[in-house]
């Protein structure tokens, strides 16, 4: 079955490459809507990599939350703030050369660091299967408190976001 494995590997690396391309699209494209679509592609691609890492549940959550919800939100805001078919304005500021230099430095340094570090990869860990049930049990058991905190934060942010974004009814300026 090596061939199948080879196919998989090729598939994964190809996905990675595609994701990187789309990521570049996210940061570099001028049309913000396209950026958002690229981001959606990146997210879906990442979800596929999750599947490759045997984290199917997480992949589903990623798609559900990011693609289904967050992206919709982003696109909504883009639609509300961008003028339809407006002129393509300059989308990057003047510090882009400095940023490229700095970031490439970081990438190089960190990359070498990553490659050099002897990661304690264990076979036991590699073989471990994570079922949805065990995830759920951990979430409701060990991590119950953070889980609840998160839910509170979610509610708070939801309400906060609505409050911030809502039009102030009382102050009706001269139209």
């Amino acid at each position, binding site marked *: 079955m090596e061939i199948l494995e080879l196919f998989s590997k090729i598939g994964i690396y190809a996905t990675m490459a595609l994701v990187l391309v789309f990521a570049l699209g996210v940061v570099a494209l001028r049309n913000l809507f396209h950026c958002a679509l690229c981001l959606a592609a990146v997210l879906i691609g990442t979800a596929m990599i999750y599947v490759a890492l045997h984290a199917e549940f997480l992949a*589903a959550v990623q798609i559900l939350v990011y693609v289904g919800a967050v992206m919709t939100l982003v696109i909504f805001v883009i639609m509300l703030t961008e003028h339809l078919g407006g002129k393509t304005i300059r989308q990057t500021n003047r510090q882009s050369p400095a940023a490229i230099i700095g970031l490439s430095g970081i990438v190089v340094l960190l990359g070498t660091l990553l490659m050099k570090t002897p990661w304690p990869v264990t076979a036991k860990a590699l073989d471990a299967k994570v079922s949805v049930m065990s995830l759920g049990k951990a979430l409701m058991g060990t991590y119950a408190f953070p889980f609840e905190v998160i839910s509170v934060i979610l509610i708070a942010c939801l309400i906060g976001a609505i409050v911030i974004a809502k039009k102030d009814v009382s102050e009706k300026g001269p139209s």
Partner: protein
Amino acid sequence: MSMPPFLRDIEFAVDLSLVNAKGWCLDLLGHFLPDWTVVLASIVISGVAILALGPLVMMYLTLLERKVIGRIQNRYGPNRVGKWGLLQPIADGIKMFTKEDIVPAQADKIVHFLAPVVIVVPALMVFLVVPFGERMTAVNLNIGLLYFIAVSSITTIPIFMGSWASRNKYSLLGGMRTAAQMISYEIPMTLSVVPVIMMSQSLSTNTIVMTQVGDLDLHWFIFTPWGLVGFLIYFLCAVAECNRPPFDLPEAESELVAGFHTEYSGMKFALFYMAEYMNAFTLCGIATTLFLGGWQGPFFPSWLWFFGKTFALICVMIWFRGTLPRFRVDQLMGFAWKFLLPLTLINIPVAALWFFVPERLAWLYSIAIFAVSFWGLVKLNCAFVPEKRIYPLAD
């Protein structure tokens, strides 16, 4: 009830005929091809089957819809092309293929092109986890249900793409309405499924069907109070999810021409249409799986049962379309957020109650809770009627 053994054998044979056919093919290939090709072939066979099934289903759904609507409106419906108009979809398909593909001048060409293509993908992908029959699930994912929900939620993005790229105000408005509506109804839909997951303790669609096993003493979830309520909510949400009447706001002809696909024609339009019908089919299929016992059923082959139930649900959808007027936007959103969502939230504890309390008592409790909460929700919703709108320009 017992059945003569030979009948059972026959039934099994018929039931598994499709599965067996695939297995026979793979066996045949296995003799003279490497192992990995067999795997690939298996995938390919399933894929092809699904890819063929999708459009087929779509085509005949259109026919079904037109026929049923016709009957509801006291006319015949298509009856010229082929016997009972059976070839009508094919004719339509040919017409679509041969139509001119119009792209607006100001449109974002790439996205405009991509949108209908992309929209078909999730619609087809969800077929993977639908259990069409016994051992007839394409991929038996252990998170099948979540997969279904996740993938179907992608649908909003191509709609956005289409509406944005068209550079048309109707398209844009339609797209935004669609997105809002789909996001809103996705939440009660997901939550209405939760009791089922709780009861079957699995996300796998197969397991869910298996927990509803019963010979004639139907163990379908719809025959429990929470299941019934969950099913009703799920089904209403499903109708809204695939933008069908009475929730067809995004495509409201009287207001928005045709919503997000105003600027599409020809095959691109057909793709949108196809995605919509396939979505309707899968949503009904999942409804069948979750609440109506999936492919469970006596005498007939399991896939026949599945399709039978699914088409029955689709007929209900069509019935809706034929009889119900369209919602207003604020009513639509209010219905999701102020009525369905609280009701699903009540449904979950009721299901938990069902789990822990003896059955008869649980019936009593559940019915009481539902009655009270239904009444309360209706009252509350009545209490917060938005003030009457005034249309100054209408006079």
